[in-house]
């Protein structure tokens, strides 16, 4: 299994993300000789407990449950509870079970979609982030995948060097922001050095948190 870093676009203070930035980023991938290889899509769903008024005791139920589907695992689904640091893999049919149970309801979904590019031992995925509530661009994500190695520790230096090259290419375009990689503490989720789809799911959960946090800050500023 390859190793992967998931980065997100962090706009400079006072600026927002827009489709022109997305186009520039896509051109970056091609400028560093990335070969466009097809489309990809991941979905993150935020679910909330479906409680009656008399049931809403603080602490008894988590504020939110995250559900994630990944393109490389079409028959699987991932649940994340950030508080207790739980990531669970299940068959896709778990979504039908959760709908039948009616204990958690979907409130909003984020769609990460775009093109993927091959560069030797690397695969890049550039994706826009849109929500189920609006067609406005919410963000941009970048997946950098190093194919030959499944050990996160061993792949770290190579991935870091690639991301440095990428950042330089983006810098040349003088865009109002940059890509950030805030790696969550994966060991707190019981995840080891060997990379798995659960590692990807947790990274996406943290990207979602960063996107919502930066947009709250933007809203306060405005």
């Amino acid at each position, binding site marked *: 299994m390859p190793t992967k870093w998931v980065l997100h676009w962090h706009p400079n203070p006072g600026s927002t993300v827009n489709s022109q930035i997305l186009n520039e980023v896509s051109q970056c991938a091609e400028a560093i000789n990335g070969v466009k290889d097809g489309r990809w899509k991941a979905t993150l769903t935020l679910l909330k407990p479906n409680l009656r008024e008399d049931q809403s005791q603080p602490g008894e139920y988590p504020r939110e449950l995250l559900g994630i589907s990944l393109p490389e695992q079409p028959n699987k689904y991932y649940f994340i509870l950030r508080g207790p640091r*739980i990531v*669970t893999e299940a068959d896709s049919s778990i979504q039908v*079970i959760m709908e039948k149970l009616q204990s958690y309801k979907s409130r909003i979904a984020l769609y990460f979609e775009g093109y993927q590019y091959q560069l030797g031992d690397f695969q890049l995925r550039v994706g826009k982030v849109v929500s189920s509530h609006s067609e406005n661009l919410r963000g941009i994500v970048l997946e950098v995948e190093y194919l030959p190695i499944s050990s996160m520790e061993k792949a770290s230096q190579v991935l870091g060097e690639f991301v440095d090259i990428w950042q330089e290419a983006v810098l040349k375009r003088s865009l109002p922001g940059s890509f950030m990689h805030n790696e969550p503490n994966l060991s707190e989720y019981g995840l080891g050095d060997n990379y798995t789809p659960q590692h990807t799911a947790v990274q996406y959960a943290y990207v979602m948190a960063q996107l919502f946090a930066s947009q709250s800050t933007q809203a306060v500023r405005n």
Partner: protein
Amino acid sequence: MECVVQGIIETQLDVPVLRKVHAVPFVGPVASEVRLLCDLEHSEPTWTVKHIGGAMRGAGADQISVLVRSMIESKASKNVLRLFYGLGYKLENELLRVGFAFHFQRGAQITVTVSSINKMLKLHATDEAVPVTPGIQLVEVTAPATPENYSEVVAAVSSFCEYLAPLLHLSKPGISTGVVPTAAAAAASLMSDGGGTTL
């Protein structure tokens, strides 16, 4: 969707263990119930989340001798128990089923399980389980079905139950049956038949 009947037999012999399933029904908000099954047969336990839905109702359902109900399963990673606790679900009870599973292809994909049902005296203590009904084993006959083919599956399961009639009474879950008084003789007759009679 699945079709299911149950019955009981009295055990005469020690039955070697082929399958152990630790079943944990959970109750959560909105009075929703889900079952977590842990298959203990192999060195690495595997978990399945199972939702059993409402049974088919109405005059048509009353006339058939097989229960037809919705059922959805999902394999899950081993921390699924922690996930459901984290979601606010409460463990209602837990049971250990020990026994055999047989598979037949007779007009439908039929599974027969013969199990002793055991309760655990301490939470998750599968080594300290005691039988709920000593000397009595539960027989379940199930077959997967779809809304389009359930009539054929019902017919196949009914027909299969007729074959098993000399050995045990089978009926919808919840309807008690009792053992067949001549079951031991019928079983002995089958086993002494040089293995020529197969179901």
